[in-house]
């Protein structure tokens, strides 16, 4: 990390420049122990609100592209811990519009704030920002690349509903090719002896590079095109949306889209501990009649994101 601003010369204790870069850019930046520590901390914040923990902190929330759910989740986490927020909600209201480089924007704002939460449409933008920033970066999504806090809240949701992350059977359903959250979660779960059921249309199978992580960890996986056949023996169904624009042939889209709609009756033969997760937004891949089923967990899952983000803010700022 560059540091033309040396804390020893900045005239006292107003703002410390961290000695090491604590940024969270990719889920692979965290070891299994780091992940478990954050999940523990999330449980702590869920049980015990700490409304003054961030009271002297200014957090920059830089959304170079809009993402309502993620932004509001972060901003809720910051507010619940008593921190203050600066930032913008899309780049049209920022200096990016005037042509400022990402380097300059980050360099400058990192002098104002204690931590930067950023979402940006370019792949790799968060890694670059973490290299030029004077303060830690939390990646809230960099293009199609990483979205580690989503992964962390998925892990927290699995832990909360199953009591463990170890030895679970998870069905990943829908768009496994482009689904960023699926790629991160598949990779993260390799540390917990997971068994994978990969359910998707042939066109949207899990990419080879991601599957390689499962193979490298010597874990069991099977690939399916039929959703029904995997439901009875899994602990988690992780649904994703199939997007029309992923198909070159619209007829092909019409053919597959309904094969991956989860309906309440399909859960009749599922295990008692099964929970249905979805990174949201949902369109029609989970029928609304599932919502009332106690096995539906996607809205609670989104709420868990607030606790996980509180935990990350506190941990990265060395407050917990």
């Amino acid at each position: 990390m560059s540091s033309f601003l040396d804390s020893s010369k900045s005239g006292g204790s107003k703002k410390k420049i961290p000695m090491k870069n604590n940024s969270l850019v990719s889920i692979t930046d965290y070891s299994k122990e780091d992940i478990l520590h954050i999940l523990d901390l999330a449980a702590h914040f869920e049980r015990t609100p700490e409304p003054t923990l961030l009271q002297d902190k200014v957090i920059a929330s830089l959304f170079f592209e809009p993402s309502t759910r993620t932004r509001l989740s972060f901003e809720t986490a910051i507010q619940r811990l008593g921190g203050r927020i600066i930032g913008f909600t899309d780049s049209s209201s920022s200096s990016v519009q005037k042509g400022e480089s990402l380097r300059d924007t980050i360099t400058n704002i990192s002098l104002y704030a204690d931590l930067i939460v950023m979402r940006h449409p370019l792949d790799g933008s968060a890694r670059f920002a973490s290299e030029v920033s004077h303060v830690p970066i939390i990646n809230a999504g960099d293009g199609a690349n990483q979205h580690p806090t989503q992964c962390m809240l998925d892990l927290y949701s699995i832990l909360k509903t199953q009591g463990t992350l170890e030895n679970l059977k998870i069905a990943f359903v829908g768009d496994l090719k482009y689904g960023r959250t699926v790629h991160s979660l598949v990779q993260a779960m390799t540390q917990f002896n997971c068994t994978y059921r990969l359910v998707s249309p042939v066109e949207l199978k899990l990419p080879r590079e991601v599957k390689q992580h499962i193979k490298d960890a010597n874990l069991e996986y099977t690939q399916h095109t039929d959703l029904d056949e995997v439901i009875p023996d899994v602990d988690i169904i992780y649904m994703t949306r199939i997007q029309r624009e992923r198909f070159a042939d619209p007829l092909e889209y019409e053919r597959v889209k309904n094969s991956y709609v989860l309906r309440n009756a399909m859960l009749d033969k599922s295990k008692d501990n099964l929970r249905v997760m979805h990174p949201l937004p949902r369109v029609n891949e989970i029928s609304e009649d599932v919502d009332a089923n106690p096995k539906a967990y996607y809205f609670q899952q989104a709420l868990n994101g607030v606790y996980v983000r509180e935990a990350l803010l506190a941990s990265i700022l060395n407050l917990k």
Partner: protein
Amino acid sequence: MEARKILQVSAIENGTVIDHIPAEAVFTVIRILGLDKCEKPITFGTNLDSKKFGKKGIIKVSEKYFENEDINKIALVAPTASLIEIKDFMVTNKRQVEIPDVVEGYVKCFNPKCVTNNQNVPRKFYVADKEDLKLKCHYCEKFTKKENITIL
């Protein structure tokens, strides 16, 4: 010195010979090593006959020796290249180029949405596979395969 009669690129007294460069890669090698800006005498040939490779290129740079780190940069485009150091017309050292673990600065990421292709960001890759050349971008984490490598 049996080959002296048929040498197509003249011998050098002191310096480095980079031999067995794929013929089509000679100008790229010159660019990667910055030889187009080097002030020492340089001779080179390309499309020369080679028993091993059919056609090859060769570059001779007088009074210059390369660090491993520098010379390995050419391994991506000239994996067959060998380096011969000459002192007083005698070969004092000979080695093969090796594909480095990290590639910085001269390869373009294949992902058009990568930050390195849209902002002024230094390029950096980790070599994920040396046999069937594959680079992983330090920033966007996408892979650039051998057939998609573009040298800048």
